[in-house]
């Protein structure tokens, strides 16, 4: 297997002493920020991107992988000990995990979440290593019209199928697309929507939009609704180790959660909410002690946590092979890759095979680090949870604005950040989803390119998207996903919240 030889090379890069230190730092700061209440993985990655700017590309990516997995793990710690899940994917973990912590079993709950995440990420990363090269073989045959069809699917699934109403989701997407127009057009050099402001010629930074919408918008919402009543984290008493019974009850949910999470995460409409809820329901049905569900069943933590992590690795499949982000976290990660001058997509595997496999290897390493560092450091994470919210949000705003001016030292960038913060606040207030705007900004220019390239090749004939069976099928899927929610109004839909 060629991919194994490449993966081996990746490991030899990732296990160099300096890179191991980067991985450890990434995992620790990723967990530290991810553990803070109200901060999900997307925001964790966006806030910590500037930390990795000035390292060498290999080191940056390795630290980045650590931050990503650390942020995910931090979210589950918050859910278990504080019952305020930082992101929607941890909502299910909070159901049983918080009950376990209340009845003095916080240690085993954290342990099964950590080990389950480890097992899931391990299996899912192996699956990623196998699946990605296969998908790349298909993806290199993609013509511009196929890409355009694929992006239509991503647009529709991100905005119309989830959220409270398709109209609001599409409006959020359109806002992102509009921001994506700004700046100099890649094909012709024409400036669009820059209003004579030179700082806008380079376009809108994805991190500025993400940090503004997520961090500043969230801070405004929390402050305006007085949501800052003190909530005490539940102390972790007794042993953090799992008993033999805990192990016996955990290992099957881990594997089932992984099997559910990875494929759903790899789909364009994936996300982590559906697999975590599915896993929770399956474990409740299959458990021999199903009466414990609702009062702290360990299966209800083990399964969903594994599903959550497996689906996170699953979203890396479309992200790395096709350059398609299917969640807010993936969108921010794509922005990160672009900072390091890496453009995910089929060409990445051909041109920068060393980087891809270095990343996959560092995901493994980050995973091991997470397991080794997190359980012993649990006392530290609990103390972080006790930071008073005024200081916490003040610190978040300082760090958010620091990252923005560090990347692009100009007042215009800060004004944009503030403006996006206000928009984020209004979107939350009137129940517009936020992820579609971020995805729209990233994919908009790519879709624009694909659309115009196809029309150049067809000499302006728009039928080109329907003449090729592959793109016709994808356009058809996108259209039916767009129309379906309007037709089946009564159909109960999944409500997807943002990180």
């Amino acid at each position, binding site marked *: 297997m060629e991919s194994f030889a490449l993966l081996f090379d990746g490991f030899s890069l990732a296990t160099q002493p300096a890179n191991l230190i980067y991985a450890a730092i990434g995992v620790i700061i990723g967990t530290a920020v991810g553990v803070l209440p109200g901060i999900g993985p997307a925001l964790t990655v966006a806030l910590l991107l500037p930390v990795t700017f000035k390292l060498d590309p290999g080191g940056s990516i390795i630290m980045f992988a650590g931050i990503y997995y650390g942020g995910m793990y931090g979210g589950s710690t918050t859910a278990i000990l504080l019952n305020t899940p930082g992101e929607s994917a941890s909502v299910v973990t909070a159901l049983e995990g918080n009950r376990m912590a209340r009845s003095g079993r916080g240690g085993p709950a954290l342990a099964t979440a950590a080990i389950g995440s480890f097992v899931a990420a391990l299996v899912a990363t192996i699956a990623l290593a196998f699946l990605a090269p296969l998908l790349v073989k298909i993806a290199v045959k993609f013509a511009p019209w196929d890409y355009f069809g694929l992006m239509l699917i991503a647009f529709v699934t991100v905005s119309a199928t989830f959220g409270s109403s398709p109209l609001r989701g599409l409006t959020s997407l359109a806002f992102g697309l*509009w921001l994506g127009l700004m700046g100099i057009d890649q094909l012709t050099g024409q400036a669009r929507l820059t209003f004579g402001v030179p700082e806008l010629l380079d376009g809108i930074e994805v991190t500025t939009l993400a940090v503004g919408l997520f961090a500043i918008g969230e801070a405004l919402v929390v402050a305006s609704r007085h949501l800052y009543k003190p909530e005490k984290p539940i102390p972790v008493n007794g042993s953090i180790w799992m008993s033999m019974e805990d192990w016996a009850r955990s290992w099957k949910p881990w594997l089932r959660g992984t099997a559910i999470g990875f494929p759903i995460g790899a789909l364009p409409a994936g996300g982590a909410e559906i697999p975590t809820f599915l896993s929770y329901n399956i474990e409740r049905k299959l458990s021999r002690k199903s009466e414990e569900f609702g009062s702290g069943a360990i299966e209800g933590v083990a399964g969903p946590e594994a599903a959550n992590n497996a689906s996170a690795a699953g979203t890396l499949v479309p992200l790395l092979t096709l350059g398609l982000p299917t969640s807010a976290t993936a969108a921010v990660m794509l922005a990160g890759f672009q900072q390091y001058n890496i453009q995910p997509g089929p060409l990445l595997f051909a041109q920068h095979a060393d980087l891809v496999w270095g990343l996959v290897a560092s995901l493994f390493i980050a995973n091991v680090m997470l397991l080794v560092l997190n359980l012993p450091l649990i006392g530290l994470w609990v103390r972080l949870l006790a930071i008073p919210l005024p200081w916490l949000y003040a610190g978040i705003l300082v760090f958010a604005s620091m990252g923005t001016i560090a990347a692009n030292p100009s007042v215009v960038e800060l004004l944009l950040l503030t403006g996006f913060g206000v928009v984020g606040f209004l979107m939350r207030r009137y129940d517009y989803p936020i992820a579609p705007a971020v995805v729209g900004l990233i994919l908009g220019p790519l879709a624009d390119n694909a659309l115009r390239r196809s029309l150049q090749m067809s000499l302006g004939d728009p039928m080109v998207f329907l003449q090729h069976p592959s793109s016709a099928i994808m356009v058809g899927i996108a259209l039916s996903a767009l129309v379906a929610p309007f037709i089946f109004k009564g159909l109960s839909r999944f409500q997807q919240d943002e990180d």
Partner: protein
Amino acid sequence: MSGKTLHTPNRPAAVVAVILFAIAFITYWDASAMTVRASYGMGANATSYFVAVLFVALGVGHLVSAFKPSDLETEASDWKAIGWIGLALASLIGSIWLGGGFILGSTLLFAFTARAFGRRALLADICLGAVLAVLIFLLFNKLLTLALPQGPLERLF
């Protein structure tokens, strides 16, 4: 938009519709002023027109929903707290604009944001914010060599 002339069951949707139409118009106006033409195929303005049409469609959608009862309860907001955060961000922007530097701006940002979240000890928060800002400045400017905006305080280091 005065409440006397417009009586719709769902006012936010009507306001959003107006904003969407305005963005559509700006985009259309911007596209019509573009001078660079593609040698063949579609020019850069074609996508702008497409996005403008999308905004018009969404605006019409919002206009329709503005005449249906709202499905959403908006919660009361504490505008004073929002004002404090606005002041916090404005202090940072002002400090950097006027050459006050990162540390001064971040200190004020920290203290005023903490005030927005209900803290009453402004002096203590200013001290804490200053310590945090100096630490971040030293870490990022010296250790990671990122260029944070400099003012009189930063030049002391």
